């Protein structure tokens, strides 16, 4: 297990390093930031001064080495727009994003998992069909459409909730519900098929045959086994807490990471985009490692062999 974890950590570091490299080269090869920040008709002297100030006049590989060196020292550069450290700019937005993604995540768990389990236990019932119909809709309706429909109903028609902004406590409700519904649909679908798979296994029949109550069979034998595949998708959802709300934040003018990303991308603010990419990668990688550890805890077979879960 320890050897396995060390390997995982090494791969995680490699992934993050790849992301830094990818971000650096994509962003630097794609255009001249000096031209994007200054206007196209800026005098040549100021373009030159800008390049010198940001180190853009040096060869690309030196810029890259300097970037990695500084990144290792916790310095990821300053925003080219307002000159403040990019890391600070991004971290300021994290609480706002978490304020909607964490409640939405809980909403997904609270609705999605019970709905999936219920549907699996009552296969082919009306409730099962209804759950599945709703969840099919949940992943074919894009989040921006869902968001706008909710705004249309609850803000425009009924006037109950604010349509955008973050100035009132009720402002967070629509973004949370939008994110939560879509995720709950996916989770319900996934939990249901994991449950059905487990319920079809011989050990479930054996447990019933030896006279256990159905309730005990479900709680003691089916649920723990179905939890294993469900952990994967839940772990992935944890990984998207930081950047899973790009579209929804934009619709509701919510001042989080997602909106910062969209505005930095249209302003071509290299440093800020790089920091966000890195933050997202780090979150995803961490979530994956946590999932692997949880796997080992849930599935004793993996503890000994040190083999991968999937």
């Amino acid at each position: 297990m320890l050897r396995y974890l060390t390997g995982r950590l090494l791969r995680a570091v490699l992934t993050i390093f790849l992301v830094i490299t990818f971000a650096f080269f994509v962003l630097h090869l794609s255009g001249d930031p000096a031209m994007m920040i200054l206007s196209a008709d800026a005098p040549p002297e100021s373009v030159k001064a800008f390049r010198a100030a940001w180190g853009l006049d040096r060869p690309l590989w030196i810029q890259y080495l300097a970037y990695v060196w500084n990144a290792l020292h916790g310095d990821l550069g300053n925003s080219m727009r307002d000159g403040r450290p990019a890391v600070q700019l991004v971290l300021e937005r994290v609480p706002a994003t978490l304020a909607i993604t964490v409640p939405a995540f809980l909403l997904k768990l609270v609705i999605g998992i019970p709905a999936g389990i219920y549907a699996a236990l009552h296969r082919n019932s009306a409730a099962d069909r209804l759950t599945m119909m709703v969840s099919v809709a949940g992943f074919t309706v894009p989040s921006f459409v869902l968001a706008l429909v909710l705004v249309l109903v609850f803000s425009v028609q009924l006037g109950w909730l604010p349509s955008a902004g973050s100035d009132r406590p009720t402002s967070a409700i629509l973004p949370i519900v939008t994110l939560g519904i879509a995720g709950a649909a996916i989770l319900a679908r996934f939990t249901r098929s994991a449950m059905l798979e487990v319920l079809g296994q011989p050990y479930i029949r054996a447990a019933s045959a030896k006279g256990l109550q159905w309730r005990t069979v479900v709680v003691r034998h089916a649920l723990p086994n179905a939890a294993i595949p469900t952990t994967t998708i839940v772990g992935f959802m944890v990984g998207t807490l930081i950047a899973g709300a790009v579209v929804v934040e934009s619709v509701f003018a919510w001042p989080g990471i997602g909106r910062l990303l969209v505005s930095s991308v249209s302003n071509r603010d290299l440093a800020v985009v790089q920091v966000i990419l890195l933050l997202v990668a780090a979150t995803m990688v961490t979530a994956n490692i946590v999932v692997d550890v949880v796997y080992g805890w849930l599935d004793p077979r993996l503890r000994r062999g040190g083999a991968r879960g999937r």
Partner: protein
Amino acid sequence: MDVKGGVRRFFEASPPLTLLALAWIAFMVIVAFGADFLAPYSFTALDLRARLHPPVFMGGKWAHALGSDELGRDVLSRLVMSIRLSLLIAFFGTMIAAAFGTAMGFVAAHFRGKVEAVILMLIDFQASMPFLIIALAVLAFFGNNLVLFVMLMGLNSWERYARIARGLTLSANEQGYAAAVRQLGASNLRVYGLHVLPNIASTLIVSMTITFPETILLESGLSFLGLGVQPPLTSLGNMVGYGREYLTRAPWIMLSPAAVIVLSTLSISIVGDWLRDRLDPTLR
């Protein structure tokens, strides 16, 4: 992730649904091909005397059957053009992903060793990052160019094909037929193109029905954010993004493209499920 099991059961419960889905897809394809003939006006034509006219079903006139927008542009004409562009982008995106991904899968399975390790690492990397974030970074920094945008859509799901093609090719190489043709002196290109590919094609085709709607959703999401298809071109996501500004006064601008997106992705999912049952019973 078995996101399609429910669609399948849904279909088994009511088979006419597949026919409806097929009919909708056929309708969309006809609209896309006939866009020039079907659009009553030019999609950029302004009619300042007919601004924000409601559609027929909300008490408007037939002159603008689906209403008009702030500049008096006909929503129906814009919708028809948007359907064409969105379907084209999704189609080429899916094709690129399938071709590139399958090729990578073949390469990984053929060379094994280091080549395979690198490809597997790329697959893991792609699967571990939300593609919307990668796409946002790449797109805005390379500028907005339709060709690049389509290529980017093609990068979206290549790893799914690569993984499937690699796995299936490894097992095909174990089987007699690939070894037999190789013994007969066939080149690698011939073995993979003419013998392995037809044997694994059904699984790949089923994957396309999963990635096609994903590509539509990705394209419309980016265009909605204003970072995808750029004006004067118009796509379904653009229309929804534009319509959002007029949500209170003119919801019809946003509702018709939104409905087309939902109906199309839903239809393709339903048909994909049906195809999966026909072509590839092992995927159930």
